[in-house]
């Protein structure tokens, strides 16, 4: 089970240049809209044509510009779940799913359709038309139509963006089960980092047509390596780095935007420093190592936590955001406030 993609395509001022592979796992493509994630899926499916490059699925060459190979979508065996599901509006649920088995021998079609309608729990919807279904039901029909076609790879393009928030959580769980049962390679495109973190094994961070970072998801969120990857994985605190120097196995630098002198273990490099806003810690008093007295600039209340904006007393620096539970916030000391930016939580980032 493997898919390898190495393609380039220019469309007006936009350049797509990506290279990655999967090995029977679920890969997430994370990025803002218009960064080339969907275009990548369309190139794999044969809907868009790359200018050059090579796409190989389970040893079959789907596209190879050098060898002049460009298989039509019909021969690629790719299951493509469209953002709006692309159900055929003039056909019932059953007929929609039936369109996925037309390449099977006639004798097997009915049984395959019936089994898939049962599996996806849409058998009682078989005579309905797509416009009569809820978003979640439409998604299940679309997945049934794809899976009954026995694809070798699943391409899911923003599969939950058309759903309401409460339905989204439930469908994410359902689709995770489906992807696990499918067992082959899957690509999941999204701009939602939480969704990809939940559902994938590895994540590729897209930034303006190229992949900024590609890593196992835990490693990626721990150390995104680039500024774009940090931002896209939800890092809210970012500062330019100045005066970086190495001393006694540590790296010392100034976070210019926050007006703080910081240090981290190891000899590291970086033009930016990032800090996730959950990772700021309350300190008992003045201590060594990235601990500072801070004043509260402003506070925003969320349903289950506060977001507190902090900076050095009297400074005009960009405030740091700190997400803190309601209990901890209410128990904050009345007098001076000391906070620690833990060594391990400071991420040094390339541009």
């Amino acid at each position: 089970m493997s898919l390898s993609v190495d393609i380039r395509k220019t469309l007006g001022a936009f350049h797509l240049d990506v290279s990655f592979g999967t090995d029977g796992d679920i890969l997430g493509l994370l990025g803002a809209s218009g960064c080339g994630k969907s275009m990548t899926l369309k190139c794999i499916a044969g809907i868009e044509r790359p200018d050059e490059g090579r796409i190989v699925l389970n040893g079959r060459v789907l596209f190879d510009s050098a060898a002049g190979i460009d298989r039509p979508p019909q021969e690629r065996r790719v299951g493509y779940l469209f953002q709006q599901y692309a159900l055929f509006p003039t056909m019932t649920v059953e007929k929609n799913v039936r369109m996925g088995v037309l390449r099977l021998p006639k004798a097997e079609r009915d049984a395959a359709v019936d089994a898939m309608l049962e599996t996806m729990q849409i058998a009682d919807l078989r005579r309905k038309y797509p416009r009569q279904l809820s978003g979640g039901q439409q998604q299940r029909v679309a997945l049934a139509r794809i899976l009954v076609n026995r694809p070798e790879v699943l391409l899911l393009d923003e599969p939950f963006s058309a759903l309401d928030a409460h339905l989204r959580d439930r469908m994410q769980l359902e689709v995770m089960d489906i992807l696990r049962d499918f067992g082959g390679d899957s690509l999941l495109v999204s701009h939602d980092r939480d969704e990809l973190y939940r559902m994938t094994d590895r994540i590729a961070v897209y930034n303006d047509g190229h992949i900024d970072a590609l890593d196992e998801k835990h490693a990626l969120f721990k150390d995104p390596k680039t500024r774009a990857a940090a931002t896209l994985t939800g890092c809210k605190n970012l500062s330019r780095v100045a005066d970086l120097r190495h001393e006694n196995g540590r790296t010392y630098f100034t976070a210019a935007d926050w007006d703080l002198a910081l240090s981290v273990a190891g000899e590291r490099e970086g033009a930016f420093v990032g800090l996730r806003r959950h990772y700021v810690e309350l300190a008992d008093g003045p201590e060594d190592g990235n601990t500072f007295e801070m004043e509260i600039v402003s506070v925003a209340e969320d349903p289950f936590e506060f977001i507190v904006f902090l900076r050095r007393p009297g400074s005009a620096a960009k405030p740091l955001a700190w997400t803190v539970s309601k209990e901890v916030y209410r128990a904050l000391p009345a007098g001076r406030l000391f906070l620690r930016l833990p060594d391990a939580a400071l991420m040094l980032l390339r541009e």
Partner: protein
Amino acid sequence: MDWFPLWNSLRIAAISTVVIFFLGIWAAYGIAKLPRLVKGVLDVILTLPLVLPPTVVGYLLLRLLGPKRPVGLLFLQLFDTKLVMTWWSAIFATVVVAFPLLYRTARGAFEAFDEDLAYAGRTLGLPNRTVFWRIRLPACREGILAGTVLAFARALGEYGATSMIAGYTPGRTATISTTVYQLWRTDNDALAFRWVLVNIAISAVVLLAVNFLEKRDKKRVRKGAAA
């Protein structure tokens, strides 16, 4: 009352509707995919008969198909048949005049079509032919149906170009519209009025049929909801 003009009008309209149906869909689909400039030029040429006076269309057709003109002459030499002044000559006129009605509505429907549906069909392994006839065309059927009916109605009522290219020969090339004119011109007002009523009746039936088809379509969907 000699019913020949009714029969003649109906067969001319029916044949030209079939021709226009395939020609119009083919042109609309092909042109929707072309680059913008070519599309604009072809669009003007194909829509022109809609706004030109039918006598101008008739004139141009005579210049092309007349027995002393290039196409007409060639045909005469090859098959010993004149392309004008027969009952089927009127089909040339009605096809040209009614074509834009289907072409424009079908093109609008094709352009509004969600291309993802076609991509979905192709990734499922359906041949392009199947995608066209079972997915694209049904999704555009309302526009195409409306255009087809309009084209039929227009073909049925065509007078100007028809009278120039097929003339008026009772029992041979007479249609309802040319008959009405001839009867009125020869002061046979009562008979002319009867043909007028016939024409109105046919047109009303055609339009009722469309409404019925559309309603049945919607009902089928509602019935599905109850099941």
